[in-house]
């Protein structure tokens, strides 16, 4: 079937990122998400190609069918037509550590070339410049979900050679390191940014350019990446959102809480 793709200028970068996140979810999967863009992505997936995806929020909402945008991971909105409302031991312990979560979505203040994540401190541990929120369930999710999607802004100070603090484990120091550390989950599989999508080289476990967003240049990506990015010979363009996806996305977040409208932030 011919897909009806939106043209550049008809969608924003955040909308494209949400669509990329949604496409990373397969029908029937158990999906662990936080609020913000991952929540929107999961809601979009359920309304398009993955209606049987079961969305779990760590506070305890299981198989959520929320119709309103939530601010907090424990937001009552996420309880709407959920199949259960339990607690953290259930979600992070029995479901996640028990090996029943297919894909987890997390954000990051910094990542390194092995997909290790910092959400705790910026600056030196003894004298930090900024104290970030911390792990929350992030470390648990990245430790034990079968695969991980990281959604973040692409900036040089965020894509770093060395993290200020290692909160959640990517591939640690490279091949075999997760297994040696005793970790259960499969580790990061995809990084969605405002410039591109990146995956991980199966041999070296290092981060690799996968697709470039329409209108973005390779030069831009290089300038905004602080570590050595693996760049394959042929890098396709990111599949743009379809008109159907955009319409659903805008109905999910009608007030533009997480995704402001194109009129407000036009993608150049």
């Amino acid at each position, binding site marked *: 079937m011919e897909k009806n793709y939106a043209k550049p200028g008809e969608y924003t970068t955040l909308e494209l990122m949400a669509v990329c996140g949604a496409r990373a979810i397969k029908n029937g999967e158990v999906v662990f998400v936080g*609020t*913000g863009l991952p929540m929107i992505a999961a809601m979009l997936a359920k309304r398009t190609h993955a209606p049987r995806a079961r969305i779990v929020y*760590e*506070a*305890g*909402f299981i198989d959520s069918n929320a119709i*309103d945008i939530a*601010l*907090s*991971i*424990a*937001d*009552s*909105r996420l*309880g*709407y037509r959920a199949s259960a*409302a*339990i*607690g*953290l*031991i259930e979600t*992070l*312990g029995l479901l*996640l*550590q028990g090996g029943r979560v297919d894909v987890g979505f997390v954000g990051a203040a910094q990542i390194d070339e092995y997909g*290790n994540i910092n959400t*705790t401190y910026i600056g030196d*541990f003894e004298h*930090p410049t*900024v*104290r*970030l*929120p*911390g*792990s*929350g*369930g*992030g*470390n*648990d999710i990245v*430790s*034990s979900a079968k695969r991980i999607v990281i959604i973040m802004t692409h900036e040089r100070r965020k894509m770093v050679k060395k993290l200020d*603090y*290692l*909160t*959640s*484990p990517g591939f*640690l120091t490279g091949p075999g*390191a*997760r297994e040696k*550390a*005793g*970790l*259960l989950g499969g580790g990061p599989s995809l990084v969605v940014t405002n410039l591109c999508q990146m995956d991980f080289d199966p041999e070296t476990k290092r981060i690799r350019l996968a697709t470039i967003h329409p209108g973005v240049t390779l030069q831009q990506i290089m300038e905004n990446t602080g570590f050595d990015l693996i760049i394959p010979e042929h890098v396709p363009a990111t599949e743009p959102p379809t008109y159907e996806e955009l319409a659903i996305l805008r109905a999910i977040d009608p007030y533009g809480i997480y995704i402001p409208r194109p009129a407000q932030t036009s993608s150049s």
Partner: protein
Amino acid sequence: MLVEAPVEDKRITLKEAAKLIPDGAHLFWGGFGFQRPPMAFAHELVRQKKRNLTIYTCGSEMDIDILAGAYVASRFELAFFAIEGIGLAPNIQRRIREGAVQIEDYTNLAMALRFLGGALGVPFMPLKSMLGTDLLTKKRFREKKAEVITCPFTGEKVVLVPSVRPDFSIVHVSRVDKEGNAQIDGIKGEDVEGARAGKKVIVLAEEIVDTEFIRSQPDQTAIPNIYVDYVVECPWGAYPMMVYNYYDYDLEHIRMYYQQCKTEEGWQKYCEEYITGVEDHMEFLKKIGFERLLKLRAKKPFPY
């Protein structure tokens, strides 16, 4: 025929409950994110000028930011703090820079298991998080924070985290009877385990219900009376955050708090206006206003 025992009455006032907490006490702090934080209890601890408390929680927000801002709590063992969806917790940031607050970082699962361990009466709990990260190697004030061991049965690596038995557990629930049988609507976060970990347990509730109501649906009891020492009737006790099936958060108030508390002067002004400048929780609610509160009431079938 069964002889009915008289129902024990564990009710005390919010003021009396806060008076029970000595300076330097260790507290399990209930609620998760925007859901059911013991906000009114935090306000009362500030009014009574408590000092040097250690707070154990998974993820908390404006409630613990207030405890840090007013120098009530100086140490936290937790996994997450922020004003979710809005920004970083402003007072905690400032108190960390001053050296007045220290945070020992764990993960949500680690904290929840530490409470379960305390409740079970075992000294530690095993888990498969934290492995390979700075959460294991970097610590602030605990002599021992976590240990990696090789499982004696399977040989795999496991992290051990110390159980917590705080002096008090503070939880805000949906409803409770006067002998302390508590129901929690919606998510329970880590409150089921946390309430069972404390040496003394104070349950605050949106409403007090008759014991017959509880006993007609015992499967709905999240915390049975055996665990509970004190009961406090505390309607709108999580405002400006939310209680499932009762009320939504007051986003405007939370945003105002966040903006204002970015400066020390702004925080002092907030504290004076809404916490120390009012006599008690009822005066605080009067200040917020009846009309404003009613607009936040949950609209069925929505729990918000």
